[in-house]
């Protein structure tokens, strides 16, 4: 099912500070809960998020069980050149999702 909502400005002036917003669909099961029959529900979370701008890593975050479902991560960067901004989420049970957005810098 649908993965991520990404918001990157389509165009920016060189040197502008731009805001990048990402919303990722994930249950973020903590691993601390038990089912109604008493069995522990295994942990299933995103553990890592990386953003790279034309292949250069600009932002990285580690995620932990206390983070709510559908984690929303937002940060700022400086628009330096036109190209591609890529996002990668990795997590438990071999979870791996990617997304990307293009930006034109004048």
């Amino acid at each position: 099912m649908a993965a991520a909502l990404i918001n990157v400005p389509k165009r920016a002036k060189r040197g502008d500070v731009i805001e990048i917003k990402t919303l990722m669909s994930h249950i973020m099961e903590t691993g601390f809960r038990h089912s109604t029959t008493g069995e522990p529900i295994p942990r299933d979370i995103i553990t890592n998020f990386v953003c790279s701008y034309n292949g250069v890593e600009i932002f990285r975050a580690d995620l932990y069980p206390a983070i709510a479902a559908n984690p929303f991560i937002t940060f700022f960067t400086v628009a330096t050149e036109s190209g591609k901004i890529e996002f990668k989420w990795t997590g438990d049970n071999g979870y791996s999702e990617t997304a990307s957005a293009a930006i034109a810098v004048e």
Partner: protein
Amino acid sequence: MNGAAITRALSAGALAISFTIIAASAAEMAPGERKSGYDFMTRDTQGMQDDDTVNPGMLWVLDGEALWNRKAGTAGKACADCHVDARTSMKGVAARYPAFDAARGRPLNLEQRVNLCRSERQQASVFRYESRELLALTAFIGRQSRGAVVEPPSDERLKPFIAAGREMFMQRQGQLNLSCANCHDDNWSKKLAGAVIPQAHPTGYPLYRLEWQGLGSLQRRLRNCLVGMRANAYDFGAPEYVDLELYLMTRARGMPVETPAVRP
């Protein structure tokens, strides 16, 4: 009966009398007095709802759009094959549901309507209540009505069902012996534990509740309230819920649709 038991019985009686007086004075809410649950939220949560790139409900809306265009069932049809572009064909639809279905002789809500299309037109299996698919499709359809005003059909045949829904709203039930009206008509804006009691206008369903960490339908919310009142909750899809949904929609007539809303 010992002294403590008598005091308990007396105070319970006094409580019952005071509640009766409140209930008797309960009148229909004046239109100017009505507030959406949105107005009781913090600015942060409001911001979450307002920005489509932040609103987690939009994840379901995107899913719903994919489902809308996907062929399903033995008929091999997608929603889009009949209804074409949801942006025009579904505009304002969620604002006038539940609507009367002549074949069944009673009102159907949007979830039931979607499942009816699945079973009859697409000849596919119906979606389970609160399944990701059903929530996604209803969120997608509801999204097309955002900003439209709630306008329940002025259908004569709906009258008895609205009356039944109103009766359920006013009816005390459960171990706590509360009616919906005790909180949502008489005590809105006050606090129940840490949470503000809203006026119960179902303008943003299905909505993303932070407490649920997910999207939920109006019936999930109604079940929540019934369980909180320690009353027996009906099964999902029960006609009692649809009557109540219908009454709540007539009560919210003229308020803007917010789907998918965010609530704390």
